[in-house]
C-alpha cells in the first residue's frame, strides 16, 4: 500500500489526542502495512487452519471438526465486519441482521425444497451453489437499505441505529411463522449438496467452507489495498477532507458497508447449512456484539484478526464449558483486558513484537 499523503499525516498530528488514539486504534498494521508481516501472518493462520482438522482427527477428537467449521464461518463474518469497522471507521452493532438474513435466505430455500412448496413462485433448493450466492445478494441489498439509512447519521447515532435495525430484522424473523417463528425449524433432512458432490461429511464440509474463506481473504485484502479501499480509509480518517477532494464519501462508505453485509450474509448461509437448523438466534443483537468482539480480540483493521478472534473465542468456549457454565464471564474479562491494555488485539501484539525484532 502506498504511503498516505504527507499533508494528511500532518493534519492528523495536529488533531486532538483523542483522534490520534482513534487512528492508532483503527488499523493494526497502520503505516507498516507496506511490510510483509501482515501477509505472512495471514498465510500462517490460514495454513494452521487448513491443517487443524487433520490434527484433530489424528488425535481422535473428530468432534472438534464442527467447531473448526464454525471458526471458519464466524471468522468470515468477523473479517467482513472488520472491513466496515476497522477500515471504514463505521462501528456497526447490527451485523447480526445480515448474518441472519443470509441464514434465512439459505434456510428458507432449503425449507421449501424439503417441503416441495414454492417461495414467492421460486422453487426451493438445498443446492449451496444457489443458496449461498442468493444469500450474498440478499444480504448486499439489505446492506444498501440499512446502511443507506444508518449512514445518514454519525458517531453514536450510527451505532444505535444499526443496533435498532438489527433488532427490527430480528423481530421480522420472529414473525415468520412458516419457519417456526421464534422457535426456528430444523432442516435435518436436507443434504449439504455443493455442486455435483455431497458435503454431508463434516470434514468435506469444513474444506468447502475453508475454500470460501480463502477466496474471501484474498478478495478483501485486494479491496483494502485498492484505490477504493484507500478512499474508504480516507473517509474514516477525515470525511470532510475527502469530500473536499471531490469524493462522494457517502457512496464509498455505503459500498463498503454493502460489501461487508453481503459477505456476512454469505457466512450466515454457511452457518445454517452447517447446523441444519434455522432460527432467529442468528440475528440476535448479542451476536452482533460477539462478531465485534472477535474483530477486536483478533485486531482491528487487519482482516485476519477476525479469524484469529473467532478461533480464540470458539476454542475458549469449547475448552472451558466443561469447567464452568459461566465461561462468558471470562470472555468479558478478556475483552476488557484487550480493550484497556492491548487495543490492537492479538494481531497487534504479535506484529508489534515482531516489528521490534525486525
Amino acid at each position, binding site marked *: 500500500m502506498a504511503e498516505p499523503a504527507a499533508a494528511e499525516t500532518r493534519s492528523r498530528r495536529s488533531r486532538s489526542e483523542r483522534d490520534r488514539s482513534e487512528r492508532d486504534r483503527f488499523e493494526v498494521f497502520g503505516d507498516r502495512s507496506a511490510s510483509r508481516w501482515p501477509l505472512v501472518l495471514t498465510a500462517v493462520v490460514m495454513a494452521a487452519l487448513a491443517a487443524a482438522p487433520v490434527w484433530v482427527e489424528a488425535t481422535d477428537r473428530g468432534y472438534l471438526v464442527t467447531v473448526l467449521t464454525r471458526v471458519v464461518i464466524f471468522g468470515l463474518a468477523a473479517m467482513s465486519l472488520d472491513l466496515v469497522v476497522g477500515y471504514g471507521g463505521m462501528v456497526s452493532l447490527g451485523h447480526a441482521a445480515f448474518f441472519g438474513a443470509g441464514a434465512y435466505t439459505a434456510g428458507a430455500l432449503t425449507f421449501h425444497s424439503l417441503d416441495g412448496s414454492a417461495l414467492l413462485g421460486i422453487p426451493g433448493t438445498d443446492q449451496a451453489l444457489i443458496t449461498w450466492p442468493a444469500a450474498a445478494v440478499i444480504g448486499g441489498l439489505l446492506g444498501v437499505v440499512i446502511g443507506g439509512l444508518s449512514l445518514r447519521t454519525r458517531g453514536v447515532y450510527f451505532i444505535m441505529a444499526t443496533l*435498532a435495525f438489527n433488532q427490527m430484522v430480528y423481530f421480522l424473523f420472529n414473525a415468520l411463522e412458516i419457519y417456526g417463528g421464534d422457535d426456528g425449524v430444523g432442516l435435518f433432512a436436507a443434504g449439504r449438496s455443493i455442486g455435483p458432490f455431497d458435503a454431508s461429511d463434516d470434514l468435506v464440509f469444513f474444506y468447502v467452507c475453508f475454500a470460501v474463506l480463502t477466496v474471501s481473504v484474498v478478495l478483501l485484502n485486494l479491496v483494502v489495498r485498492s484505490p477504493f479501499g484507500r478512499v474508504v480509509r480516507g473517509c474514516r480518517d477525515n470525511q470532510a477532507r475527502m469530500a473536499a477532494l471531490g469524493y462522494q464519501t457517502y457512496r464509498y462508505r455505503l459500498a463498503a458497508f454493502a460489501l461487508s453485509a453481503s459477505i456476512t450474509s454469505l457466512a450466515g448461509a454457511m452457518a445454517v447449512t452447517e447446523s441444519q437448523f434455522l432460527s432467529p438466534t442468528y440475528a440476535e443483537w448479542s451476536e452482533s456484539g460477539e462478531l465485534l468482539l472477535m474483530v477486536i480480540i483478533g485486531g482491528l483493521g487487519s482482516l485476519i484478526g477476525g479469524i484469529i478472534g473467532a478461533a480464540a473465542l470458539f476454542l475458549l468456549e469449547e475448552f472451558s464449558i466443561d469447567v464452568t457454565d459461566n465461561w462468558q464471564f471470562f470472555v468479558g474479562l478478556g475483552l476488557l483486558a484487550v480493550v484497556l491494555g492491548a487495543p490492537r488485539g492479538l494481531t497487534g501484539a504479535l506484529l508489534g513484537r515482531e516489528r521490534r525484532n525486525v
Partner: protein
Amino acid sequence: MQLFVEQTLNGLQLGFTLLMVSAGLTLIFGIMNIINLAHGSLFMVGAFVAADVGGRTGNYAVALLAGTAAAAVVGMFVEFVLIRRLYLRDHLDQVLATFALVLMANEAVQMIWGTRPGGVSTPAFLDRTVTVFPGLPYPAYRLAIIAAGIAAISSLYLLVDRTRIGMWIRAGTTHRELLGAFGVNVRLLYTLVFAIGAGLAGFAGVVASPFLSVESGVGDNFLILSFVVIVVGGIGSLKGAVYGSLLLGLVDTWARTYLPLGFDGFLDASTAATVGASVASASIYVVMIVVLVVKPNGLFGLPDG
C-alpha cells in the same frame, strides 16, 4: 373504549418505565459522551438485589431502597474503575468495554444468585384495584409505577434545571473545558451523574420486577428500547427522552393490542397472534426509521450528534 383506556394505561406504564432507563442513558451520553451498553445491566442489578432483599425481609420499601442504592453504588464503582478510562477513548472502545461489562454482569448475577429467578411481590397497600373508569378496576401498583415515573422524572428535571449541580450538568454538555476552569470538580460531577443514571435504571428495575422474570439478561431488552427512544428523541435531550419514551410505550402497546385483532379477520387465531405480535414489535422501529429519515438527529437532538 374500556379496552382502549386500559391499554393506554398499560402503555403509559411501559413508557414511564422506559423513561426511567433512557433518561439516565441520555444524560450520561449528553454530559460525558459515553455510550453505555451496560446501562441495562444496572437495571438488572436493581431487580436482582430487590428480589434478594425482598425475599429476605418481605418488605417492599426496603427492597426498593436496596435495589436503587445497589445500582447507584455499582454504577459509581464501574465509573470509578472503568468508565473514567473511556472518556478520551473513541465510541468503539466504549461499546466494547461496556459490552464486556454486559457479558460479565449477565454471568455474575448467575454466579451470585443462581439461575432460579426470584421475584418482588407488590407491596400490600398497593395490592388492590382502583376504579379508574366506570366498570374498569385497574391494579393500584401499575398506577403507582406511572406516578413514580412522573415523580422521578420531575425531580430529575428540577435537579438539572433549578440547582447549582444542575447548572454544572447543563454546562457540562456544551462547555466541558470551561467548567473545569471555573473550579468545578468535573470528575466528581461525572461520577455523580453516572450514579444518578444508574440509580434511576436500578429504580426502574425494581418497580418493573413484579412483571418480569428476574433473570440474567433481564435488562437487555430495556437497553435496546432505550436506544430507540434516544435515537427518536435525540441524544442528550431529556425532553427528547420524555417524548420518545411515552410515544414508543403507547405505540408499542396499542400496536400489540390492535394489530392481532386486525389480522384476526383473515388468519387463524394463533397465526394472527404471532404475526400481529411480531409486526407490533417492529412498530416502534418503523417510528424510528421515519424519524431517522425526517430528522436524522432525533426530534429534539442537537444539530451535530
